[in-house]
């Protein structure tokens, strides 16, 4: 039982960052209908920017996180502006091929710049774990969970309570009507892609200090994010948030009670099972935003 509680706590902490990844992708994939293979690379990019600001430039740890998130947003918006803007309305395969190309370019540029050796980032938190009854957690992980939850809440408020969020939701429901109402839909798509990428970069910046930063880290992140989005239902932000926690829980349980080698297989099994039995996702009302 004690062990189970510990696993639950670990899952909760991973779930926070998975939820960030999933929400970022559900905005892009669920709403813009773009199979975004660069999402995991944006996650890796966030981690590398964290390394760049915190270790190379020696900035303050918290400032480095903020800068890394901003850098992710800028890169995401640039990708949308340069590669996808002229292909709006193209079929899903076309944009997907573009995104695969962009993913290869991004990942190999990372290897070229940073080398393939993993980097580590030191956090300013004490190494002694926080102990709560039978559960013990390192303080940096608790920090990661709280920041992730704060970002999830902020995204939720942005989409549901602000004028920009309203414009986004309108664009996603019916972009031509939204354009007729005076919304600059092109800008909305760029902003959405930037926002989704910023969330992926945030997940990378937060997990960089917990694990190590390596060029291959983005590969599985993309696929896990797809699993989370499918689990929650396309475009469903609440679903993606829960999907993140469910995937983290499934991985933790799979790794500890089946075999640690199959930790990463859980996401794929979830995808296959969900698509077979409930293709609209576990949390679907209908396909809508918010």
């Amino acid at each position, binding site marked *: 039982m004690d062990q189970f509680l510990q696993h639950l706590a670990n899952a909760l902490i991973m779930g926070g960052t998975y939820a960030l990844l999933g929400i970022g992708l559900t905005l892009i994939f669920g709403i813009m209908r773009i199979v975004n293979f660069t999402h995991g690379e944006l996650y890796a990019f966030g981690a590398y920017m964290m390394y760049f600001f915190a270790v190379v430039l020696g900035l303050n740890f918290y400032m480095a996180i903020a800068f890394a998130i901003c850098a992710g947003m800028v890169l995401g918006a640039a990708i949308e502006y340069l590669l996808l803007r002229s292909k709006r309305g193209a079929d899903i395969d076309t944009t*997907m091929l573009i995104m695969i190309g962009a993913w*290869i*370019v991004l*990942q*190999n540029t990372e290897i070229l710049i940073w080398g393939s050796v993993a980097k580590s980032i030191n956090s300013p938190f004490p190494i002694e774990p926080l102990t709560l009854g039978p559960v013990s957690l390192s303080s940096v992980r608790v920090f990661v969970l709280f920041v992730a939850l704060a970002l999830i809440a902020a995204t939720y408020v942005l989409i549901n309570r602000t004028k920009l969020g309203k414009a986004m939701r309108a664009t996603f429901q019916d972009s031509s009507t939204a354009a007729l109402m005076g919304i600059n839909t092109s800008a909305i798509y760029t902003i959405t892609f930037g926002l989704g990428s910023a969330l992926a970069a945030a997940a990378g910046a937060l997990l960089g200090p917990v694990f190590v930063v390596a060029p291959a880290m983005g590969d599985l992140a993309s696929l896990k994010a797809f699993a989370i989005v499918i689990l929650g239902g396309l475009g469903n932000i609440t679903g993606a948030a829960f999907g993140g926690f469910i995937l983290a829980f499934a991985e933790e349980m799979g790794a500890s009670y089946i075999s640690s080698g199959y930790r*990463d297989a859980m996401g*794929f099994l979830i995808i296959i099972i969900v698509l077979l039995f409930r293709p609209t996702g576990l949390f679907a009302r209908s396909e809508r935003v918010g």
Partner: protein
Amino acid sequence: MSRIFTLLVLAFFLSVPLWLTDQYYLHTLVVCGIFMLAAMSLNLLLGYTGQLSLGHVAFFGIGAYVSALTSLGFSVSIFAYQITHEPWPPVIGVVLGGAVAGLCGYLIGKLAFRVRGAYFVIVTVSFAEVIRLIALNWIELTNGPLALPGIPPLTLGFEPIGYATLWSKGANYYVVLTFIVITYIIIKRLIDSPYGRAMIALRENEILATSVGISVTRYLVLAAVFAGTIAGVSGTLYAHYIQIIDPMIFMFLNTVTMVIMVITGGKGTLAGPVVGGLIFGIAPVILRNYVGPEVQWILYGALMILIVFVLPEGIVPAIERWFSRATAKSAELAMEPGKGARS
């Protein structure tokens, strides 16, 4: 005209090992041919049925592992039953590898073709990743990350004639070339048959095709079985040629290589994967003199984006259009003196 051209191309490729003495270049061509074979099978799904399968490397890898294990032998225990397999000749491995990959094509086709578009892509990627993780973790069978070394090369021959083991690169070149020619003919026959026309109809308009009585799942699964079998056979050739395989064979980048070959050459054309395969099989040889592997991949990625923007149909359709325009123009010129003939 086009038949003469085809024969000339074939004669050229038949003559290659006679004058190309550099073993490294020959090796590159053999590997290039093996991937070309896989790309041709991917073209069946991507080009003719219009389904973007990004898990194609799974069939390739399954073929390689099945054939390697058939010819090496293995011993595993499943639920306390000990299963031991004595080594069999590699040729049987090739047949079994193709068959098992084709069976996987049937199963995954039945499963994945329930969904379309983005979902289909993600199911196929997930399938390939699950297979990769099994190859990595079922160490008793696959030796995991330690790889399966010492796979015997193919041995051809019959009882009265005697046997020949294909150690040399030239011999392997001819085997791969033979498989490419056979596959090309099979795919051509398939596409020209009613089955192929049904597949193309599904690509063009699935709802309309269904309304005239084409069974969607049946034809898509059929395409997946063909594609899986051919990719599996190409995997078996890879295993027996390279003689060592590890779970890295399931890398997503291998699928990406096949996809790039197909879309660069021209998806949905018979010659597309061949042309694309040659370009991307030979490009690394030239590029490696100038740049490192990362820059090569960056160039591939950039080229992929460029192709989608500039030549969305690929090289072969572009050349065909240019060629037919040129011949039309010369025909027009020939017609010019007798104006009455043109009406």
